């Protein structure tokens, strides 16, 4: 049947299925740690429905933004990015449903609230993974360095937010964040915040100066530190707050404990934020 079709159409279909397979792989790699975390299953059924809805609504502009910032396939317009975002969502839903069903986390005799909650929660990391994997297709490699040169400041901050969200989502649902914040005394928390900033700046430095001579004449140490590291860490803390609120770790928690939990969660998030600019 396919033999009668024009050659370029067959090639197009092949590229489509290869792209889907890549996206499935990306969704799996990103979401597997969360698919196999019991807190994520529990949060799936006890999360406030409105918080889950907000998470799903935020997902769409996040995916489209990821498509725009990572700037793959230069011929693509905004409409294609939107299509890519929804393709990523389809893949994430199917992947989460299959994996959770096989793992016996989702069964047929569960009420729909539990099934939908568990799958919807996993759709978030899964679709980010699928979107990033789709970004790896096409002639991206050639344009990578050019894009980095052009990469604008808001785009860089957006990528930092995605990186923070990615690593933070793995860790925020676990009990350990709250436990660590109870265990740690203020001096250690201040030390952890300082360590987060220092490591973040190390990554920023590595991105800015891949060779020995600085590429940008205006990029001084303090300028980079304030523009990327400090602003980046502020974004990281805001994302930590959002994640802790979404996963119901904020209710009834005092201000000091909340700040402490943000610093603890901010550690992995800041590494994710800084590394995102190297990876994506």
């Amino acid at each position: 049947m396919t033999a009668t079709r024009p050659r370029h159409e067959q090639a197009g279909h092949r590229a489509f299925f290869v792209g889907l397979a890549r996206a499935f792989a990306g969704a799996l790699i990103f979401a597997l740690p969360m698919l196999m975390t019991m807190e994520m299953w529990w949060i799936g059924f006890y999360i406030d429905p409105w918080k889950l809805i907000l998470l799903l609504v935020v997902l769409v502009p996040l995916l489209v933004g990821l498509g725009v910032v990572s700037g793959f396939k230069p011929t693509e317009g905004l409409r294609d990015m939107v299509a890519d975002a929804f393709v990523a969502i389809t893949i994430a839903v199917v992947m989460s449903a299959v994996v959770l069903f096989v793992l016996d986390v989702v069964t047929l005799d569960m009420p729909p609230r539990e099934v939908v909650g568990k799958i919807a929660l996993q759709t978030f990391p899964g679709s980010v993974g699928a979107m990033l994997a789709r970004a790896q297709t096409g002639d991206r490699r050639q344009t990578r360095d050019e894009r980095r040169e052009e990469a604008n400041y808001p785009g860089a901050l957006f990528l930092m937010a995605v990186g923070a969200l990615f690593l933070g989502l793995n860790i925020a649902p676990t009990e350990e964040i709250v436990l660590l914040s109870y265990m740690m005394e203020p001096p250690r928390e201040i030390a952890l915040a300082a360590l987060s900033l220092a490591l973040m700046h190390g990554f920023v430095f590595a991105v800015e100066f891949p060779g020995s001579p600085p590429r940008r004449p205006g990029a001084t140490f303090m300028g980079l530190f304030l523009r990327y590291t400090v602003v980046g860490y502020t974004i990281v803390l805001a994302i930590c707050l959002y994640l802790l609120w979404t996963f119901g770790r904020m209710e009834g928690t005092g201000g000091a404990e909340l700040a402490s939990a943000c610093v603890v969660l901010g550690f992995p998030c800041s590494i994710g934020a800084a590394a995102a600019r190297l990876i994506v």
Partner: protein
Amino acid sequence: MERSSGGTSTSPWEWAVALLGLALLLAMIGYMAFFALAHEGGVPVVSADQVRVERAGDGWVVRFRVRNDGAVTAASLRVVAELRQGTAVVEAGEVTIDYLPAFSERQAGLILRRDPGGHDLRIVPSSYTEP
């Protein structure tokens, strides 16, 4: 047809999958909104029923089912059981269930040394925490 307008590289297949994604997302959001509006707040409504009694080694195992007909999850749900002879409690036991989600059921077992057949067995949910 799409190709002529502004160089789109999305194939009809991709548009189909994208539309499916949009439908799935809207369905999940719609269901959650419906659930939130239909069941606002409330408390867990928990009941326990005995399923089966089986001889196990030197004792007996009573399998029972707990069901939550409320719209909120009960965490660390304690279920206590009393085996009575008249008004006297001859044996007692308790089970803690980690989570009992809204409109869900879970099964658990109670291990007794006496045969519950000749006694009055009461299985009652007693407390929970909010997750």
